[in-house]
């Protein structure tokens, strides 16, 4: 198992290298001059030029990239132009908030979607099945922006039940943070929830007609045990893959949600940085997110192996053998 993980980590190095090239190129070709934006419209040409040189923007691109890469290897993401603080510090200040938001969304999505998906599969073609799958279809095509605004309209403005912006503060107790967390979490959870429910249903349907489910029934197990123990574990395999993808997507999808709800997460930091043409900040945070993505994927792959004994650790986590 350890060997497998190490092998996978080594495999990640070229991936991250490629990402660094792409990020670097993209941040250089975005239109807009960071020096001009920083100094404002009144600045003289000389001052702007001086700042460009100071920021290293006049160096050849290869030199700039070399500098970026060397910093990366030292775990340094550079210093934000706009905030004049290390990028990593800024990220580490806000990233936990994003994780909190994404995690609570994932939790909501899973808790709601799993039972719905299972029940829809068990009671295939029932009214429950039709209703929940219709909702799921609506859910995946729901624009997060619109949903977020509707939630705010309904729960904050009309019913005045929940706060609509910000994160609250721990000094007002955990309840304050939780109440701030509810609306953005629901907004962010909707699409993954709908996806999970559909995947759970289809993979459960696939599993319940397998011979080993008939065997489980012939053993005298209760229907509950047949579903939860014998079906779900096998149905989890495709679900885990989708979950892994969704986690990555939620971290990036959080940008939109964080903007709507003024959630002080990393998404807002990035949006802010793009507006201010703070390319150091942008390249640093995208690198950071890329790192998180590959890390999450690695974790999912490891989980995958744990759930599915047919994948051996040695064959690179690839195909299952002996179908």
């Amino acid at each position, binding site marked *: 198992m350890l060997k497998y993980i190490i092998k996978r980590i080594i495999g990640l190095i070229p991936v991250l290298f490629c990402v660094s090239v792409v990020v670097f190129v993209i941040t250089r070709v975005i239109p807009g001059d960071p020096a001009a934006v920083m100094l404002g419209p009144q600045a003289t040409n000389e001052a702007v030029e001086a700042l460009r040189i100071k920021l290293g923007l006049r160096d050849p691109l290869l030199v700039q990239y070399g500098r970026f890469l060397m910093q990366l290897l030292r775990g340094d993401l550079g210093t934000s132009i706009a905030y004049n603080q290390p990028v990593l510090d800024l990220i580490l200040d806000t990233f936990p908030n994003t994780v909190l938001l994404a995690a609570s969304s994932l939790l909501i999505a899973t808790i709601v979607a799993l039972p719905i998906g299972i029940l829809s599969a068990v009671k295939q073609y029932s009214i429950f099945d039709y209703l929940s799958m219709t909702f799921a279809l609506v859910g995946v095509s729901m624009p997060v922006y619109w949903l977020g605004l509707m939630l705010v309209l309904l729960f904050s403005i009309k019913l005045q039940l929940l706060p609509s912006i910000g994160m609250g503060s721990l000094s007002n107790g955990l309840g304050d943070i939780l109440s701030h967390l509810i609306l953005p979490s629901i907004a962010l959870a909707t699409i993954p929830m709908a996806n999970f429910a559909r995947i759970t249903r289809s993979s459960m349907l696939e599993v319940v007609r397998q011979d080993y489910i008939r*065997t489980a029934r012939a053993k005298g*197990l*209760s229907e509950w045990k047949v579903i939860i123990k*014998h079906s779900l574990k096998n149905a989890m395999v495709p679900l885990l893959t989708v979950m892994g993808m969704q986690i990555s997507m939620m971290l990036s999808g959080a940008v939109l949600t964080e903007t709507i709800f003024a959630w002080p997460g990393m998404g807002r930091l990035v949006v802010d940085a793009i507006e201010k043409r703070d390319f150091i900040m942008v390249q640093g945070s995208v690198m950071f997110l890329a790192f998180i993505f590959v890390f999450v994927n690695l974790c999912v792959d490891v989980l995958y192996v744990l759930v*599915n*004994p047919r994948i051996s650790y040695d064959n690179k986590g690839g195909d299952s053998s002996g179908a």
Partner: protein
Amino acid sequence: MSNELLRVTDLRTYFAAGPDPAKAVDGVTFSLNEGETLGIVGESGSGKSVTAMSIMRLIPNPPGKIVSGEIIFSGKNLLQLSEAAMRRIRGNEISMIFQDPMTALNPSFTIGNQIAEVIELHQKMTSKEAGKVAVEMLKMVGIPEAEERAKQYPHQFSGGMRQRAMIAMALSCKPKLLIADEPTTALDVTVQAQILNLMKKLQKELNTSIIMITHDLGVVAETCDYVAVMYAGRCVEYSDTVTLFDNPLHPYTWGLLASQPNLDSKEKQKLKTIKGNPPDLRNLPLGCNFAERCPHAQHICFEKEPQLSEIENNHLTACHFSKEWLSSRGEVS
């Protein structure tokens, strides 16, 4: 005579999909004594598996439904038991092994775990004790290094080994009845013989009755005391194995016997096949289901359905002319 363990009377199981139900099992009658083996033979689609699943009461509903009949097992009518009572019988007093051992075991749990599960469920044991019994069972079915093997997953077992594991699982609660639905069809010939011998050996040790579903008459000859021949959802002939082979009284059984290779016969015979196809189960003919294909069919066969009746002692057939076949014994071949 030994005691009767199971008596199935006029069992009917239909699958409803559309206006006409498919009469997959439509009047099956047989009985089985303690410690004996009953073979159920018949073409593909004749309702053998549905009969077995009806006894287990595991017919998927919808679309399937047991519409009538009696299944008396150890004095109880299984069709009148509650689902909870039935669960206590499944895997405990009646257990089942299936055709394809490659797919009948759950890929996500170890072999030992899957055997222990059924023991723990029915025997009031802790999981640790059940695990020990599971290893004992694996030893009993001839799996070497059982302790190690119990920790492995199905994909690490060969087909024959998996079927042994299935047998271990099925016999772990010492059931009174084991239903084996084509247990050797998916295995190669040498492994087939090993599995059949193993089943016979364990049957003696545990005094288990077996229902052996197969379309291999060789398997029947080797393992069964009694045979029920099924055709299009009906039991068309029932007798002890020797009588069935020596003195079959239903034209369908003759066809079945003629279509099997016979190594004992001196002259090399050409294998005969039964002409035509079985009838549509949604639209069964008015008279005898086999009349269309029967070389001896008369008017009455197309008009009146023959009932299963006792022609000689413990030999039942459903053919209008069985009595005549019996009296002209020897002339027909």
